[in-house]
């Protein structure tokens, strides 16, 4: 047991070390400044378009954290973004550009749905069945998401197909095929909407802290647990070392005994599995049924922004996911309280990503204003 304790302590030490690391600190500052700058530009655009900029910003904040239900919504979005963000981070870390998290997420959620819908009648119709059903759903989601991630991995390894492109195509294909199957085979008799039946009542995560039908603190827990596991694996295991090394410098990884092809497929599989798990969480916690994936939020794409804001560091995904969840929630709130079109918030998110992509910009600005340190 003391082994575990020292393990935890040294993990904590390492996290602290990381946080104190100058480059991490710089990263955080850049993320904050980028966000502030993007919001500022957003506010200026709002004002220039004849809306009230102050109201825009204050509504954004209020919509995210203003009251319990807003906070619940933000955390719900954040949970999804953290999970999908980690999925992206794993792949990017290993040097594989998995832009297909959205598709893996869709497929994972679909697999979870199938599991629940087909297994539920076989189990007693009571809450005893909840845990086995959800466990089954999660397993299926992991498997399906993993397989759907492995596919472009194998295409890359065995046919040299660029994964950026294949994964984007697979996103379109996932949505199209799932929509088709759903509409053709899973739509209940007589219903118009391309939705499956509602899951049994007992399937779902208990609200606990928040009284929201679509958010449970357990969902956030799943996301955080996933982050912790991924962080441990990356930082403390030989496999994680292999993975990260492959991302930094593939020839060196190969030299050290990594089979690069297998590593790509594994990485994509793991990334897809996490995305699939996000899909299961989405189906179970948020929807409670499954629907046309074309109407789903683009968590898988926003996750790219999240991961990048976090410099592809699994721990960094947590604050980044919270930030984007907040923007999402605030944006929605703006959509129905102000006349400001909510698309603006999407644009602001884009600006944040753009600025985060160019840390040099802030370093230069820092040097110019002689505020920042003089790195290099």
């Amino acid at each position, binding site marked *: 047991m003391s082994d575990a304790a020292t393990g935890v302590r040294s993990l904590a030490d390492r996290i602290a070390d990381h946080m104190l690391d100058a480059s991490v600190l710089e990263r955080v500052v850049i993320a904050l400044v980028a966000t502030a700058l993007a919001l500022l530009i957003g506010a200026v655009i709002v004002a220039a378009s004849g809306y009230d900029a102050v109201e825009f910003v204050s509504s954004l904040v209020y919509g995210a954290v203003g009251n319990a239900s807003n906070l619940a919504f933000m955390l719900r979005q954040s949970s999804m973004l953290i999970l999908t963000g980690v999925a992206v981070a794993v792949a990017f870390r290993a040097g594989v550009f998995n832009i297909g998290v959205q598709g893996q997420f869709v497929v994972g959620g679909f697999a979870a749905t199938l599991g629940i819908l087909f297994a539920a009648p076989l189990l007693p119709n009571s809450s005893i069945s909840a845990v086995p059903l959800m466990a089954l759903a999660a397993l299926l989601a992991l498997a399906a998401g993993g397989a759907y991630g492995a596919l472009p991995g194998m295409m890359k390894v065995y046919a040299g197909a660029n994964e950026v492109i294949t994964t984007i195509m697979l996103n379109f294909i996932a949505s199209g095929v799932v929509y088709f199957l759903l509409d053709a085979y899973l739509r209940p008799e007589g219903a*118009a*909407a*391309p939705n499956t039946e509602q899951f049994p009542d007992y399937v779902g995560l208990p609200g606990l802290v928040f009284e929201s039908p*679509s958010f449970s603190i357990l969902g956030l827990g799943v996301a955080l647990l996933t982050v912790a596991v991924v962080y441990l694996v990356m930082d403390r295991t030989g496999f994680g070392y292999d993975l990260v090394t492959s991302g930094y410098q593939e020839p060196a990884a190969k030299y050290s005994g990594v089979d690069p092809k297998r590593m790509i497929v594994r990485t994509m599989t793991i990334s897809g599995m996490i995305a699939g798990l996000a899909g299961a969480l989405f189906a179970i916690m948020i929807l409670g049924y499954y629907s046309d994936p074309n*109407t789903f939020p683009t968590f898988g794409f926003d996750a790219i922004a999240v991961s990048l804001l976090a410099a592809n560091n699994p721990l960094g995904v947590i604050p980044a996911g919270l930030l984007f969840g907040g923007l999402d929630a605030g944006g929605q709130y703006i959509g*129905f*309280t102000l006349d400001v079109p909510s698309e603006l918030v999407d644009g602001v998110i884009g600006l944040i990503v753009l600025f985060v992509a160019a840390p040099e910009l802030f370093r230069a600005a820092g040097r110019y204003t002689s505020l920042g340190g003089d790195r290099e």
Partner: protein
Amino acid sequence: LSGGDSEETTTTAADDGGGDDSETSGETTESGGSGGETTNVAIVSSPAGFGDQAFNDLALQGLQTAAEEYDIEIQQVEETNQSNYQTVQSRLAESTNPDYDLVVLVSYNHTQALQTNAEAYPDQNWMLINDSVDQPNVAGYTWANHQMSFQAGVLAGTMTTRELSYEGNSLDPDSSTVGFVGGVDGSLINAFERSYRAGVEWVDENVDVRVGYIGNYTDTQTANNIATSQYDAGADIVYHAAAAAGQGVFQAAQDANRFAIGVDADQSVTLPEYEDVIMGSAVKYINEGTYEVAEATVQDNWSAVQGANILGLEEDAVRVVLGQAVGGELPDVVTENLEAAREAIINGDVTVPCSASGC
């Protein structure tokens, strides 16, 4: 192009919904302060969003008409992610400033979420367009898409073998082919398609119906391509059920010098630049539905609208209206056939395939 400024004329609904909207709410905010018992209404879009020149805009238009007569403040909520409807609905239901008297939900995408929320918020009144939820606080309004599409089929089936020529556009009496362009290939639009086919066949069994789906409701380019392909294949008339993307069909009709049938609203009026090809439109009066529910809310007469309301030919809530330009050129047989079909449907001689909400 017809006179008048195009902002006014292109999309009556969209303009009312957008350009004038800030004004509207500005006004009502003031009138809210003036002391009267203001009725607050929120309307949440379908994933197609406002500006679709179809049911989102029509639904909004009905509310705006009501707001001209009554002291109503409208909050427009555009939300295109179905997974967010659950939260948007509950956030609106919980809202106290203002406290909404009515929340209008456009399209069946809201159904699942509303099943939970209608129960969770028994004091909140909801209007659900295109579906219904069996709760006392829900007014479900469904328009008989299948019936109006059948009528559109009757119009197309009647005209494809006849002669018509208007401003350089013409029908080929020797070809008996018509077309249909749908948005997303799914139950909802399949109902339009099958009923349209049935309507065509009801007139003339030998008419060939070409069908194409865009895959979404936004890509006018693909809509245009599909329609052109159908005109190439001999179609005289193409009916669309593709919301905003349907403009591409009219454009294709102009290029092919053929005709088209609009949907939802009288599109020869809402899109006057295409009036020379719009033979008629399959219209549903969603605006009247939202008006009705808004009025009932103002007048505290909920029971009049509560429940599942299916509005069809019998209620005069859907019909085919002839184009404002081309309509006058059409032979009388058209009106005769339309009327005959309407009666046959109402008294059950003809069963239109599918249902109001899908196939």
